[in-house]
């Protein structure tokens, strides 16, 4: 479904993503993890055609970002980490706009379902400017889900959500994958990645450190650790080559505490 080959992106002189290649099939949920500035958001934005590529090709459902950007976008939904909504449009008007752009003919039932699911029904006629951070996030997610995308790109989707919202979102992502969507989630919440992702990609300084199934990551990088340490977190640090650094930091902290 998503096919990325040799993708690189630089900002001025800074190489943000370096020769990235991967693919995500329908029903798969890929977790994109890495340090701040690893290139996660750049990758997601490039897949959706928001920012131009410096090199490489990106295809969604066989449509290339270079030759068929409209068809690609028609099949893709992107939820940014900080949703920039149209401040004077109401919640319902945002969904109407989305329905219009993505040619959804009779969206009323789906709109009502989504608004109820994310507890936005009482805010249906409120302007986006009056919504809280979490509600803005929920609205952006509703807009993305309304179009029933084949590819779902979520950048830090849990930001600002309440526990109920997080639970609903996790469940809904699983449902989207079950429906046949290819999902990529960028997140620092490793527990969440562990919970819902079938695959994981560890990025560091724009390069792939690991790409594969979740179990493989744990097997490969947390090999001879005790069961307690065989967590995704331990594997993540090992993949980044930071195991020593983390242990050192912990020792430093305990020494300081001891003093």
């Amino acid at each position, binding site marked *: 479904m998503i096919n990325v080959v040799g993708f690189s992106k630089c900002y001025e002189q800074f190489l943000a993503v370096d020769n990235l290649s991967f693919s995500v099939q329908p029903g798969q949920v890929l977790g994109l993890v890495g340090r701040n500035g690893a290139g996660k958001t750049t990758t997601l*934005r490039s897949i959706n055609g928001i920012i131009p590529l410096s090199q490489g090709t990106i295809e969604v459902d066989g449509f290339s970002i270079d030759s068929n950007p409209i068809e690609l*976008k028609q099949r893709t939904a992107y939820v940014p980490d900080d949703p920039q909504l149209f401040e004077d449009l109401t919640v319902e008007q945002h969904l109407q706009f989305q329905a*219009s752009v993505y040619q*959804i003919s009779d969206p009323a039932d789906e709109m009502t379902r989504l608004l109820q699911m994310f507890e936005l029904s009482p805010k249906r006629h409120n302007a986006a400017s009056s919504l809280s951070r979490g509600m803005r996030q929920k609205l952006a997610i509703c807009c993305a889900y309304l179009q029933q995308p084949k590819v779902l790109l979520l950048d830090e989707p849990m930001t600002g959500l309440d526990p109920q919202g997080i639970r609903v979102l996790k469940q809904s992502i699983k449902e989207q994958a079950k429906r046949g969507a290819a999902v990529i989630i960028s997140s620092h919440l490793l527990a969440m990645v562990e919970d819902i992702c079938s695959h994981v990609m560890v990025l560091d300084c724009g390069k792939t450190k690991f790409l594969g199934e979740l179990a493989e990551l744990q097997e490969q990088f947390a090999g001879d650790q005790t069961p307690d340490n065989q967590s995704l977190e331990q594997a993540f640090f090992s993949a980044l080559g930071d195991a020593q650094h983390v242990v050192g930091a912990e020792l430093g902290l305990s020494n300081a505490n001891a003093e």
Partner: protein
Amino acid sequence: MMQSTTQPLSGSLWHPALQRLLRFQTKAKFRRLFASFRNPRKKVISIVAVLLGLMWLSQTILSVLFREAADPDQIGFWLPLGLFIYSLWHLIKISTRQVVEPFEWTPAEKEFVIAAPVTRTQQITYRLTSIATAALAKAVCFSVIMSPDIRVWYAGFFGMLLGLAFVDLVRVLFELFFYGLGKAGRRVVQLVVLAGAGGCFLYAISNCLIAQTANSDLSSPGALLFFKNFIAEITSLAQSQVGQSLMAPFAVFSKFALSPETNIVLFKNMFLAVGLNGLAVAAVYVLDRWMQRRGRQKEVANLKTAIAQKANADDSAAVQSNRKIRVPARLGGVGSLLWRQLLGVKNYRGTVAFSLTVPVLLSCLPLLANHNPGMMLLNLIASMVFYSFLLLPSALILDYRRDINRMAVLKSLPISSLAMTIGQLAVPVLMCCLFQAVVLTIGAASGKVILWQAILAGVLLVPVNVLIFAAENYIFMLAPYQRNKEGFDVFLRTILTFTGKGLFFGLALGLALLWVTIVVRTHNYFALSNWFSTSAFTLGVWGVTLSLAWFFVLSITKRFERFDPSQDTPGVG
């Protein structure tokens, strides 16, 4: 172990951290200004900016060197009147637009300054200092331009600085007062302001009309004469007892700036000018405290209303959620964008209506002259094009300029770049057409313009409107900026943009003149019919305008495709 060394500093006006922030911001502004010149992505626009800057500078120097000093009495009258009208404009704008929080804190300031452990007084001092910094840049430019009229240079500079700072302080006072009022109070102020300003305007217009009707010798230069009469009426209003009282504070700055020599009168005016600013600053602190108190009272009242309404809210939401949802027609994406921008027009209908009323009234002025219908139509068209070019782009910000922070969202939509550009330009162009339709309708209804010619003119003007907004958006896309920002960089940008647009307008006028010369020569040489030559001229101008408009639309489309939200979105401060 780290320890907090921060003192409360609650008694002082200034907090050192805010002083430092201001210093950093000022440095950053210049750094950003020069960095944009070094950015390879902005090489061309930087060269254009430098050229325009040089052009503006040389024109200013020439005008300063070769301009004769204006009559001291005239300038002594018009300078305070200018400052007064500028303040009045602020008052009208504040009382008619949607209520905004005073001081216009940027998102970063809300997070770092409002949330910081500093007193409200220190926050206000910080904001007033940034306002004064912006006034400083303006004062430098104004005092340079006015140097032939200024006798004592330091008085000229400080007089302008204090005068401009006072206007800004008056604006802040209006904002605080208006924000502190309740709904009913705001409505009353709105009515008083609109009735007062509108009454003066109508009084002046009606006096002009009476004078015009009484004078039977009026012929072709009627519009010019009307304009002169109008200025005379405004002058007499300003010279009336009430006018003099209202302008008295502003006259202090003008007297100080235009002091003929260093003497006791200069120092007296300087003392008064500084004192007025001091009073205004003190009034800002006092009014802000009142506004905060009013805010708390409103909170309590709102809470009561909210509790009373809460019981019904869920039921009504459930009922409303079951109704039929109308999806706007997509039309390749143009329809969706058009619908969304039209919602903006609906939400800001008061502001939009007011913004269009002024150009309608100004454009109708030629109707007061006595011309044959053909000449009248030409005058009306020239007037409409001029005001469409001058006033409407800043009044109808319903295009890319409104969406600079949502470019990532726009780019993610499955809409082609061309459709995106057309959709973004559609609403301002439609509103501009509406404005022209109203003027032409008034012309036709008054019997001074032939109806079918008015309709034809309306249709022929559509490419002009596209050109105006496409050029505005193209300039914006070349060097995007955040709206509602003030400061030296914005001031510089405004000057450069205006110079660029003026050049473009002059060039277009020159080309039109060249074309009319060619048509007239050809007409005389081949003894062509009038109808043929007129059609050839009109079609030529229309064709070139249409081609230029299309060129700009395609250029914006290219810019939108190349726009990288990660790199090209300007900082919000």
